[in-house]
């Protein structure tokens, strides 16, 4: 390891603490704003020296901002693959910036500045991606944090802005506000009652979309869905957030109804399912990540229905991050093969659940 994750305030995972609104159903809220510098080519066409110019300017602007004046600067292009993966597993950087593919070549001067909650990805698909990650369902709070940062660094930088098209982005799907807000939500009730397809279809009809655990192109694991706005132009930031917020509140309501139906019509089936999940997590000696996430989904449902006492949502959140490959490798201090990883994961899971039960 050439860098220390502890340099990031709170390790960048304060959003795990389940302190936010609806923390039992909504894991986290993320809002990002895409910005580009006026006189620089977008990163698809830029040369390494252009990227360095962008990074220098963004760093200087950040030092003059209220939130990031002494934030650590992490050069993603100087990190090993497992270190980049660690940051990605914590949702601090995107898959695009981490470039974890087989032929993945990290973009020159790709960097992250973060205070743990609010941060800037530099030289991602756009020059600047401001982002804020918060615990639970808190769109407005996340956006107001970003608005401050946007104002501060926008005062120092010349952003590419067009009187008609708004903020200009490398991909036209982000132009206008550059705002993408997403809510990571756990919907086992809707999946078990097979209502989920209907809900997702309904969302697509009102201009929203869903993705998996890690954003664009990622799969749905453990019944976690990222719901976000699909369009970024033609509506104000406030309207986009309000619309997404209204729809998420509806989805939460549907999920609660589905859980109610499950408990009313199939209480023994549900109790059996959640306790089995708990039993497997607690006693298994080898666990894949997907299996862990699916079992965690069952236990989380059990906690939500007050069937399983003594387990905190925080522990479940923590497991979903720390049971990932790069995190396990970090805690072991060495690289792990797949079978070894599964054994270490099971041991770690057991330990965390036992600690929680005896607390």
């Amino acid at each position, binding site marked *: 390891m050439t860098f220390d994750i502890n340099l990031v305030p709170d390790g960048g995972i304060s959003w795990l603490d389940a302190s936010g609104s609806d923390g039992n159903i909504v894991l986290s809220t993320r809002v990002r704003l895409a910005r*580009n510098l*006026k*006189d*620089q*080519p*977008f990163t*698809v*066409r830029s040369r390494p020296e252009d990227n360095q110019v962008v990074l220098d300017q963004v760093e200087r602007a950040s030092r003059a901002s209220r939130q990031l004046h002494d934030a650590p600067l992490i050069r993603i292009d100087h990190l090993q693959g497992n270190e980049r993966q660690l940051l990605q597993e914590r949702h601090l950087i995107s898959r695009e910036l981490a470039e974890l593919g087989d032929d993945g070549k990290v973009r020159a001067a790709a960097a992250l500045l973060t205070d743990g909650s609010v941060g800037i990805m530099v030289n991602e*698909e756009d020059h600047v991606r401001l982002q804020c990650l918060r615990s639970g369902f808190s769109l407005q709070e996340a956006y107001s944090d970003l608005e401050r940062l*946007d104002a501060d660094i*926008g*005062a*120092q*930088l*010349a*952003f*590419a*802005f*067009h*009187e*008609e*098209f*708004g*903020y*200009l982005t*490398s*991909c*036209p*799907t982000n*132009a*206008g*506000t550059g*705002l993408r807000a997403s809510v990571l939500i756990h919907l086992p009730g809707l999946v078990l009652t097979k209502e*989920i*397809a*209907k809900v*997702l*279809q309904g969302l*697509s009809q009102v201009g929203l*979309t*869903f*993705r*998996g655990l890690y954003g*664009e*192109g*990622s799969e*749905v694991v453990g019944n976690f869905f990222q719901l976000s706005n*699909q*369009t*970024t*132009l*033609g*509506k*104000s*930031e406030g309207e986009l957030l309000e619309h997404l917020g209204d729809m998420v509140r509806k989805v939460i309501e549907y999920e609660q109804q589905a859980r109610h139906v499950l408990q009313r019509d199939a209480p023994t089936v549900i109790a059996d399912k959640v306790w089995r999940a708990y039993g497997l997590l607690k006693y298994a000696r080898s666990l894949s990540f997907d299996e862990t996430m699916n079992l965690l989904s069952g236990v989380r449902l059990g906690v939500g229905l007050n069937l399983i006492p003594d387990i905190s949502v925080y522990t479940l959140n923590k497991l979903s991050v720390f049971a990932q490959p790069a995190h396990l490798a970090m805690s072991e201090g060495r690289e792990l093969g797949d079978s070894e990883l599964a054994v270490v994961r099971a041991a770690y899971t057991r330990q965390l659940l036992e600690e929680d039960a005896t607390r």
Partner: protein
Amino acid sequence: MQCDQCGERPAAVHLTQIVNDSVTTVHLCEQCAAEKGVQTGATVAKFPLSDFLASMGKGASTQIPVGDDVAECKSCGGTLQDFRDSGRLGCPECYRAFASHLRDLLRRLHGSSQHVGELYTASNAAVDQAAPTVADLRDQLRRAVEVENFELAADLRDRIRVIE
């Protein structure tokens, strides 16, 4: 109930259509419905929107009429063909160089091409040159017409109108 189309599999999709003022209901199985292009909850779940979105920039860019590919952004040298291939524009100036194409594309993607969100006002620190005057723009317009860059000319004309 059996599928009206194949008569073999159980009907899962009940499609009500209004054709020539009369209401008809067709009962289809998942497979026949998919073949007819009827989108069901199941097909939506199978083909997550994320994939659609991921391909959207690229897919949408292929809808740009062929023939204008030679147009080149003066700032970065990018062409519409480059955009069609990658789904990404080369630089902020591309939005001006290809304004009319992008306006159509943005309308299809977002339902509008007019930004109504936060306005960016460049600070003194950031502005490296004063905004062009109407005289500057007229000069540019004349040159654009001379080199037959009508797209740029139209854009400049619009900008002059806004200022005036």
